């Protein structure tokens, strides 16, 4: 009963039990942290263009480029167990067939890191508002964040993704809305998504849906900068062999 092996076993068993209990308490503690998210989304501009998926496709499809304004305060989503919040703006539009549920497509997303999260290249950096001048920063010093964590204010933001429909046709589609969603990633425990209703101390999101709008017809030749998209931080990643495009065999 007193050999080294037995002692190591006991310590390891005790460590596992304690780690499990601590993780459980941390995971459950998020439910007693009050939340009150709010968001306001406005459509700025939408254009429908003809294009083809940029890899090997032969058919042409209609793509919608949706520019938007976003004002949101998600600072209450960040508690001590929040590693990051994956924020996304999705377009919800009805299917071409009346009996099918509505289609959804993400047009923009951002990864908002929690305070303790180790730096990652994909973390979202809020752009400075256009009329304010950038604060002077010393070389090598990280510039202070413009807004507190969880607050986003974007005007005329370009989308990250141009969306299309499985039917290939998007022009003149009615009853389209932009909806904000998020996925809170904890350090340990359950992943939670945006809640519309109130769950105990978590209030449902206030606002968060834009007004209904329609997608226009395909206009004349659209200017390149009007239908440009914004590359996410993961798009600027330097990959090994990244200078060559990934083929069908590549991973």
């Amino acid at each position, binding site marked *: 009963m007193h050999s080294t092996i037995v002692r190591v076993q006991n310590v390891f068993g005790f460590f596992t039990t304690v780690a499990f209990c601590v993780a459980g308490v941390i995971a459950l503690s998020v439910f007693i942290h009050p939340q009150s998210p709010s968001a306001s989304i406005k459509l700025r501009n939408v254009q429908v263009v003809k294009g083809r998926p940029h890899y090997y496709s032969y058919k042409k499809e209609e793509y919608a480029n949706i520019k938007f304004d976003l004002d949101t305060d998600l600072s209450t989503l960040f508690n001590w167990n929040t590693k990051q919040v994956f924020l996304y703006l*999705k377009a919800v539009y009805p*299917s071409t*067939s009346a009996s099918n*549920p509505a*289609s959804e*497509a993400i047009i923009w997303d951002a990864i908002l890191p929690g305070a303790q999260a180790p730096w990652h290249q994909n973390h979202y950096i809020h752009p400075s508002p256009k009329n304010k001048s950038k604060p002077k920063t010393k070389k090598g010093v990280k510039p202070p964040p413009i807004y507190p964590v969880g607050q986003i204010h974007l005007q005329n933001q370009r989308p990250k993704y141009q969306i299309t429909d*499985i039917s290939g046709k998007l022009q003149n589609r009615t009853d389209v809305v932009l909806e904000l969603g998020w996925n809170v*990633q904890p350090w340990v425990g359950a*992943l939670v998504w945006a809640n519309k209703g109130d769950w105990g101390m978590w209030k449902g999101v206030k606002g968060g849906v834009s007004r209904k709008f329609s997608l226009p017809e395909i206009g004349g030749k659209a200017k390149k900068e009007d239908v440009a998209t914004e590359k996410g931080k993961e798009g600027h990643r330097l990959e090994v062999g990244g200078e060559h495009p990934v083929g069908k065999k590549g991973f």
Partner: protein
Amino acid sequence: MHHSTTISAPFHLRRLLSEVLTIAWVLATCYLLWASLRYVTDSKHPVLVVSSESMEPAFYRGDVIFLSNCQQKIHVGDIPVVWFQNRSLPMVHRAIEVHYAADSVKADSTFRQLVLTKGDNNDVDDRVLYPEGREYAYREEVVGLVKGYVPYAGWLSLIVSDRQWILYLMLGAVALFVR
């Protein structure tokens, strides 16, 4: 009075059977817990270990993810685990598009759910990774949605899957010490 001295050989049948029963009991309990988890989550693979960096910084290699297949409708922003037939590994990525199409396969003409996924750490969506000619994944190919996770807990499993000899070494060490 003389019962203990009648057993002269070192072989004790009763004790051996008792040990076998203990082991069988432990194995049966583990299997029962695993089967219950699969039943409750409605998924064949309720627990997985993340083995790629395509979902950083949300999931790193070695994180353990818990799946549930009870949610029938996938929404964008969810994290479905897509496992195509004849693939050795599933893909844990985020759903960025969900469409519904008329079902030509099922006879009762219900709609079919089509999902397009993309890893948070990938530049492009997963179409290049889908089987030839497939633009979307079907709901039937999703073995579950990620609902919870524990960081770092899967590292031993990753090391063992990369270097099988470690597993045999560990089994050998256990056998040695149990004797």
